[in-house]
């Protein structure tokens, strides 16, 4: 086909697009994914029975708020990853800052209480924490990949990693409502691992799932 004919065909008909189409798609994916993830946690894990007492502990709020802040940074990052030509470095920094905050908190409290450092790090649930977070990340991961497939990620590996970053943070925030641990060192290490797993998976799967 001649290029000019192609152009005529593309420009024929209604060429208008609704603004905010991309934002709506990402918001829908995040909302739907997190709802499924929350339901999954309530059915499969159950909320922490001592949630009321835990709410008095600063570590509880740290392990809930840090992932939520990361979700807040990763949602716009995901949109930028789906838009050709948008810089993403600041989005990644915004996503990583709460992790750094958790580590600083862990180091600070660890220095104050060296004797129970190892016990705090292992807690009672260290074997299951990271994989539970990764499992609870799955609904949001699938939804994030779906939303990216409606956009145009020009770096599929990074876009997949971004989907994993959003999903891992969402999974960690949901898991924090089940998790009984109240040691900053525990949260820094095992939540960190749990949130990193979807990022790695997304970086590996992105080039396969996000072709257009």
């Amino acid at each position: 086909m001649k290029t000019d004919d192609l152009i005529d065909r593309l420009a024929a008909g209604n060429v208008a697009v609704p603004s905010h189409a991309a934002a709506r798609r990402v918001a829908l994916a995040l909302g739907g994914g997190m709802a499924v993830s929350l339901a999954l946690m309530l059915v499969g894990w159950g909320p922490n029975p001592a949630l009321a007492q835990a709410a008095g502990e600063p570590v509880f709020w740290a392990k809930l708020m840090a992932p939520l802040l990361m979700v807040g940074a990763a949602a716009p990052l995901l949109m930028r990853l789906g838009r050709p030509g948008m810089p993403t470095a600041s989005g990644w920094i915004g996503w990583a800052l709460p992790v750094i905050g958790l580590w600083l908190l862990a180091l600070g409290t660890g220095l104050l209480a060296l004797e129970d450092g190892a016990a705090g790090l292992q807690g009672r649930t260290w074997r299951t924490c990271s994989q539970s977070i990764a499992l609870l990340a799955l609904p949001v991961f699938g939804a994030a990949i779906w939303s990216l497939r409606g956009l145009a990620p020009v770096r599929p590996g990074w876009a997949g990693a971004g989907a994993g970053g959003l999903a891992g943070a969402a999974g960690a925030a949901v898991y924090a409502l089940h998790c009984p641990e109240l040691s900053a060192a525990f949260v820094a290490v095992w939540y960190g691992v749990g949130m990193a797993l979807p990022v790695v998976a997304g970086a590996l799967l992105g080039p396969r799932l996000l072709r257009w």
Partner: protein
Amino acid sequence: MARTNTHQEAADTPVGVETALHRLLLAGLDGDGVAYRRFLQQLGARLRSFYRRRLPRWPDDVEDLVQETLMAVHRQRHTYRRDQPVTAWVHAIARYKTIDLLRSRQVREALHDPLDDATDILCGTADTDAFEARRDLARLLATLPDRQRLPIEQVKLQGRSVAEVAQSAGMSESAVKVGIHRGLKALAARIAARGSAGGEGPDT
């Protein structure tokens, strides 16, 4: 076919091109089909010279890539953010399509070509029709007999004088002139015949 405003070269600086493309695209996204068509035409010309410089070893792929990129731009126009430079957006898409092509051909060494200069799309010349025309002309010329083809090529395309060509080809000057005249007439007839028989091309 009517080609309105393909060569709007008034401001052929990077900033001027960006401004013009941005205005046309925004109008298009708001539903102005005419502006959108002009946007695609200007963009197509930029893309053509961009790809031709990027892929000197694959001249045959240039037009395919131009079309594929235009289709991608069209399909993904909802991913454009209105305050973003159009050229940055298109460049990222063009780069993705280039890598896609190179990867599909398993031509690894070509990936070492730097593809990261967004201003490149701005700097090339806008030759919308020149490439297609040259391709078509070469194909048509090949169908002519030598006594018509050579005079046309040398006088009309290379700009030599009739006397010069007559001497080097061992023809009389009037034979050269007659060859040009008949050859051009034959070309015109072929183009007309093709135009009426052509219609819709195969979808790519």
